[in-house]
């Protein structure tokens, strides 16, 4: 059941990467999913897809993997935060 939910959320995230009119909708979805699912590595993959699709120009001194690195940082931060909370501590 949890795996089915995870696959559905993954599909929604992918559609949001391609079709959501505003980037922060995708970021909110990813944060929610990282809280909801255990070891949500898809956040890093989603960052990579965002970078590959839209990346370019002089943003962040021309660094091409802004979303991927942000995904990694967000993953570590949220996982650490989850461990500190009573609700997720058992995971």
């Amino acid at each position, binding site marked *: 059941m949890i795996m089915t939910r995870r696959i559905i959320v993954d599909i929604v995230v992918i559609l949001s990467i391609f079709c959501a009119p505003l980037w922060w909708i995708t970021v909110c979805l990813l944060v929610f999913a990282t809280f909801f699912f255990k070891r949500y590595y898809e956040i890093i993959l989603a960052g990579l897809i965002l970078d590959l699709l839209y*990346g370019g120009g*002089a943003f962040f001194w021309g660094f091409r993997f802004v979303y991927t690195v942000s995904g990694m940082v967000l993953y570590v931060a949220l996982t650490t935060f989850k461990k500190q909370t009573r609700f997720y501590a058992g995971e």
Partner: protein
Amino acid sequence: MIIYYPRLAGDRFASMRKQRNIQKRTITFFVTVGLVSIFLFADGYGFLSRSVGFMAVSLWKTQNYAGNLWGGFRNLVRSKKSLVDENTKLKEDLRVLSMKLLDRNLLFEENLDLKEAMGRSVLDRTVLASVLAGPGQSLYDTLIIDIGEDFGVEIGDEVLYAGNIMIGKVTEVLKRSSKVVLFSSPGELTDVLVGDEKITTTAKGRAGGNYEIRLPRDIAIAEGDVVLLPGIMPRIVGYVEYIDVKTSDPFKLILFRDVVDSRQVREVEVVLRDKEIKK
């Protein structure tokens, strides 16, 4: 009596676990090194970018098609009276704009004739492109357009809106799509002419259609001044919106905006200089 067996078994399991952990770490290490090598040496970025771009273009084209269908359906079910009212209003607006443009067109043609008489042909070969994804969809401030190698688009080609407003440059070309970095993209530097005296300077993108310029305080620039790209055929980039002058600073900060909101751009023109259009 001392029983040794459980302790031995525990040791054996601990050793097996340790061995498995070493195996896991070795595999992770080699996979990471492999992925990094692909990215750095074997144009992995280009390969992955092309693959993701290929999938995305199909999805975006389907989305556009569905959007057009939905728009058509919505027009069908709207009341006839509201459509007639809107039509009348739009016709009136169009008439007023056409009158205003008459003068501009005459001057433009005269300008072209004069340049041609002086031995400079300034008519560019442009090709129309539809915007598949806009700057709101990422922090990068890029546009994805629906033409690429199939129409002869190359890296560095300039992108226009409404014929005379320069908005960006092509930075990546795929088979059926291209990536355009807007001049207002964060950190992007563009040479521009500003003010009545056409002072040459460099504008820095600040995202969301905003730019900044720093100029000595004594140079006369006013709010509303036009900002152009240099060239025989000057293209509009934006208008000065705000000037920040501090008594302690010998420079002033000039903020200007795009003429058009790039999030609402649906069609652009790509300038194909000295090239034949393949299709």
